[in-house]
């Protein structure tokens, strides 16, 4: 067992624990912390894939900025505990579990059918070159210029949407205007 494989297994287990924990816990803060764990594990996966830049981005953007925002919102609103409503669709949970199991078995089956999925070894230099921040930047502004621009537009409409949805309703007359 190589070092990489060992690292991968450990990280994978951590990432899965984070994901499952996030869904299972009722306390919102706990969930958020488990999500953080998941983000960390994923960033390590990037590192294992020879992408230090993505590793850094994942840490700063997700684990840093977004998580902090989540925690702020949760704590400001005092929404640590989600409402404990009785589950009307308990049966579905089991069905979902069964389906997940089936999907897992299917994935394994597909792997068996397809045979070895091991990617051919790549020169370390090439990989490093591909994940180099400079290369990524150049790509973004040349090949992926159009998608990059569109990201900006998406942000714009996103902001407009947020503004609209969060404006206080002025009068009762507004109710159902276009409707």
């Amino acid at each position, binding site marked *: 067992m190589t070092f990489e494989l060992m690292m991968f297994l450990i990280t994978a287990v951590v990432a899965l624990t984070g994901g499952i924990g996030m869904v299972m816990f009722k306390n919102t803060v706990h969930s958020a912390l488990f999500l953080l764990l998941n983000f960390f594990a994923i960033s390590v996966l990037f590192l294992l894939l020879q992408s230090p830049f993505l590793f850094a981005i994942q840490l700063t953007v997700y684990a840093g900025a977004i998580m902090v925002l989540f925690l702020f919102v949760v704590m400001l609103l005092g929404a640590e505990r989600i409402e404990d409503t009785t589950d009307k669709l308990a049966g579905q949970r089991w069905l979902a579990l069964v389906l997940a199991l089936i999907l897992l078995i299917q994935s394994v089956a597909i792997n068996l059918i397809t045979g070895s999925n091991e990617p051919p070894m790549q020169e370390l230099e090439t990989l490093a070159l591909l994940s180099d921040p400079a290369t990524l930047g150049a790509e973004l502004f040349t090949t992926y210029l*159009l*998608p990059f621009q569109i990201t900006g537009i998406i942000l714009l*409409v996103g902001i407009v949407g947020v503004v609209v949805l969060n404006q206080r309703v002025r009068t009762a007359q507004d109710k159902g205007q276009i409707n």
Partner: protein
Amino acid sequence: MQFALTDVPRILPEILLLVLALLVLGSDVFERWANTDAARTEQHRASASLAALGLGMILIIALIQSGYVYRLPDDAPINFLTNIVRNLQNGGPASELATTPILGAFATDDLTMIGRLVVIAAAFLTVLLTYDARPTANPGEFYTLIIGSTLGMCLMAGSSELIMTFLAIELTSIPLYVLAGYFRNDRQSTEAGMKYFLFGAMSSGILLYGMSLTYGYAATAAVTQGSTGNNLTQFERIRELVAQAGEPTVLLTLGMLFLIAGIGYKVTVVPFHGWSPDVYQGAPTPITAFIATASKVASFILLFRLLTTTFPVLTGAADVIIPVEASTFTGWTSLLALLAFLTLIVGNLAALPQTNAKRLLAYSSIAHAGFLLMGLVAWSASLAMDREAGIASLLYYLVAYTVMNLGVFGVLYVVDQHTRSDEISVLNGLARRNLGLAVLFTIFVFSLAGIPPLSGFFAKFYVFMAAWQAGAEWLVIVGLITTIISLYYYLRLLRAVFIVPPDTDAPIPTPRWMATSLVLSALLVIVLGLFPNIILTIIDNVQAVAGR
């Protein structure tokens, strides 16, 4: 590959849409702060007219650029006017530039052009519909979101690369989430927005998973073949790699399945349709019309381009009922035939007992997705000619579908404005309360039901024909049977309009611009039915694209 100056006219409609969105957003600044109803109406109309004018102009510019109506001859005299037209048309689908997508990401061929025209026209008609409505809160933002979403749909129609595809879908969806939940005081609307958002987020996840599998396959193939390139997300490139790698693997098929599922939610294919009845019912009616038409058109075009340019290897027969032999499953044509079957059955049967008109039409719209899929199934035909018939029928169906659905939702909207309800019962006796509106409604509903000579009939006929030629006879028969069933619920609408007496005889007014929008749609429904050649000649251009 670099972005060149000559690429600017090629994406001119998109650039103009962005400019228009910003203009509409900014124009609010110049309006008085609206405190009275009159001022609010004025503010609403200012934004609406700006949006409508802008969309109308962009539609005209796109039409000129397309060269479908008028193509500047090569030996035309050189003057100011012809220079403009020539420059525009150089970015159009007929110029040789259009053979390669911009940066490999955005194709500007005929398919895109048709998609653009339909989508922008749908947005234009939607905006016209809302002009006379009771004023919206934040009209500037409302129309900005509509235009932003339109921009996203145009990009979807032309997208030829995975990342672009994802971003275009998001750009289309995010404004629609907000628009569906635009009335926060209305529980149904808020719920619709929320559901749409949650379901959309999940589908995006599925879509991305499919993309990563596809990309993973392409990258592996590329590395194996010793080529390093940064264009592994382009549809064309993936197709080449798949072709060079020989036998497509299960992994690639799996990626394709997830891609279909991810886009399938946007085109409301069973079993990915769950959100649509709730969202259609809850969203403001013009937005429902917009979601049901423009967004579906863009998604179908995207699905078509994705499947035919990326996975032409993964096609085969259209018979999927019983996988007797190992080789029965033959790629996406079989899968889509299966999905079309499910969609036809579920959509048409679940529509039967509905009591809410919007919900009924939501199921009808699901059912139409089934008919549309038959056009794609025709790709399994062995002859190129029959495949082309499939594409042409699909595109014709999309156009017809758009106008008739805009119309039928538009009529509901007019009634809704007056009665504040969209149950079927409010349509009772519409013929006595507003005969003109009832006649328009009848035209749209009969077109939906596929009665000649309206465009809906020829659309169905052509799709059936294409599927039949492609060997999907069983699907055509299912289609015919469900068409008969569908008649029953369409007639329920008409029975309410013409036969059931109303509670009150008070006339329902049709404001001017709503009427204009409806009459335009009705004219298109009739004219496209009587003279389908008008657009069939245009659609024929697409076949060159599709064959590649």
